[in-house]
């Protein structure tokens, strides 16, 4: 009885303590974004004479973003209400190319990491292509695929394939040899060894590769849409630049940033789903 009497107020105190801690951590987390907004606003005011509308205030960007998304006041003219189409076009390219890159990069990385013979046959060639920057592929891919999805998807594929392939390959090479021996001892051979031992053991490294490459995918989609396609978020940036609409350009940058961070979060959620139960969850 006395025990529970003492426990009750303790729990309440603990509860309010937790709420207090959450408030503090929330304030702490919003400190930096708020100060960035403040500095941004101050800079816009300061540079008003020099850059004028080329350095939009946070308010102007928010206004452009909202009209672009929901056509609230027509301030973005022909862009008004078209955000969803731009997102759709870019997202389609990113996901298709990312999927193809994962479907090629993971099996190839597993094979090359696992088999010495495959390493000798394939890896030198792959390593020869890797140092060529994605941007260097832009002209030739436009010649090959013309203006359109093909060129964009090809460029994003090139940007995402190598990190996925390399991380898978290294993940396989650094598997604890005892784990491989255990698999051999238990009768896992050939493809079954790869599927049941090598792949799951390399999965943490594979996820690292996927998360690195999803960032590259958004870089590549913007680059390709600036030059090789006539729609999508990158194209909106280029188009709005032509109309000297810095507010829309920045709004598009914000959207790309948000989408990039959301796709990283999604991969992290998948990583937690597959690896969290045995490895503990990761965050941020």
């Amino acid at each position, binding site marked *: 009885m006395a025990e529970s009497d003492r426990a009750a107020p303790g729990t309440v105190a603990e509860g309010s303590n937790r709420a207090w801690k959450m408030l503090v951590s929330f304030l702490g987390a919003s400190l930096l974004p708020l100060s960035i907004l403040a500095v941004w606003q101050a800079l816009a005011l300061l540079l008003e004479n020099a850059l004028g509308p080329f350095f939009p205030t946070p308010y102007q960007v928010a206004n452009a973003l909202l009209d672009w998304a929901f056509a609230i006041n027509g301030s973005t003219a022909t862009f008004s209400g078209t955000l969803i189409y731009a997102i759709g076009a870019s997202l389609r390219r990113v996901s298709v190319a990312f999927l193809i890159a994962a479907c090629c990069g993971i099996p190839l990385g597993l094979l090359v990491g696992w088999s010495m013979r495959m390493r000798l046959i394939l890896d030198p060639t792959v390593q020869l292509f890797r140092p060529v920057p994605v941007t260097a592929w832009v002209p030739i891919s436009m010649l090959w695929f013309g203006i359109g999805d093909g060129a964009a998807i090809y460029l994003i594929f090139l940007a995402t394939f190598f990190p996925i392939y390399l991380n898978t390959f290294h993940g396989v090479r650094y598997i604890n040899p*005892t784990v491989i021996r*255990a698999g051999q001892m238990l009768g896992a051979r050939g493809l079954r060894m790869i599927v049941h031992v090598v792949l799951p053991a390399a999965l943490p490294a594979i996820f690292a590769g996927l998360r690195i490459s999803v960032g590259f995918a958004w870089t590549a989609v913007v680059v390709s849409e600036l030059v090789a396609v006539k729609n999508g978020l990158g194209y909106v940036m280029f188009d709005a630049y032509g109309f000297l609409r810095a507010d829309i350009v920045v709004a598009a940058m914000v959207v790309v940033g948000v989408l990039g961070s959301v796709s990283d979060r999604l991969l992290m959620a998948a990583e937690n789903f597959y690896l969290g139960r045995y490895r503990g969850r990761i965050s941020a």
Partner: protein
Amino acid sequence: MSTQPAQAAPKPSFVRYDAVTKSYGAKGGALALRATSLDIAEGEFICVVGPSGCGKTTLLNMLAGFVKPTTGRVSIGDVPVAEPGPDRGVVFQEAGLFDWLTARRNVEFGLKMSGVPQKERQLRADEVLKLTGMLRFADRYPSQLSGGMKQRIGIARALVNDPAVLLMDEPFAALDAQSRSLMQEELLSVWRRTGKTILFVTHSVDEAIYLADRVVVMSANPGRIKADIRIEIERPRDEMSLEFNRLKRELKEMVMFEARQQELEA
């Protein structure tokens, strides 16, 4: 010391190392193991002790099929060892469990690879999990198990395939003293109940005398068998007894002498 009691008929050899050598590198490279022969009877518990670099793990790995002898031959029941397989269960020093599988799935892995249906897999896994006292923890992942528990799963995972021999490579070396004694007792009880042939590599003379029917002492540079001693002390063995300590002194001197030789040569 290796005098055998007159009444014990020599058992037929089950595991046989026939003049095996191992050298690394090109021809004339470092000789890790000099022509070594060793016979192990079915159901025998053999401990191999010696300083590091004496080739005791190489000896075990040859039987496991991880390492091929340079010359000579290793066989079990007259069948030569070619590659690793579930008929020779290996328990590794660092467990080597599959992190991504629960304890139960780890134990079932070998059965799954050899195509045993799910129903039977579960029954047989339950049996060895019970035998090793791990049934309660069957649904945990290796990261949620202590070192001793991981080794029990390692033993269960090897035993479930009903291997002809159990090969143990310093399995308790990383455990604290209490868990180690506990695991030693449990291993003996598993051995009694299953009658498995066990080859157990350790650097602890105490552990070897406590567990083994025979202790094989090895020396280094190149690796070779220096002594093969039958332990006649009645089980359960009292580590405080005069007999135990007399043997311990003798073996320890042998191993220490080897270690000292190695220091001098290095």
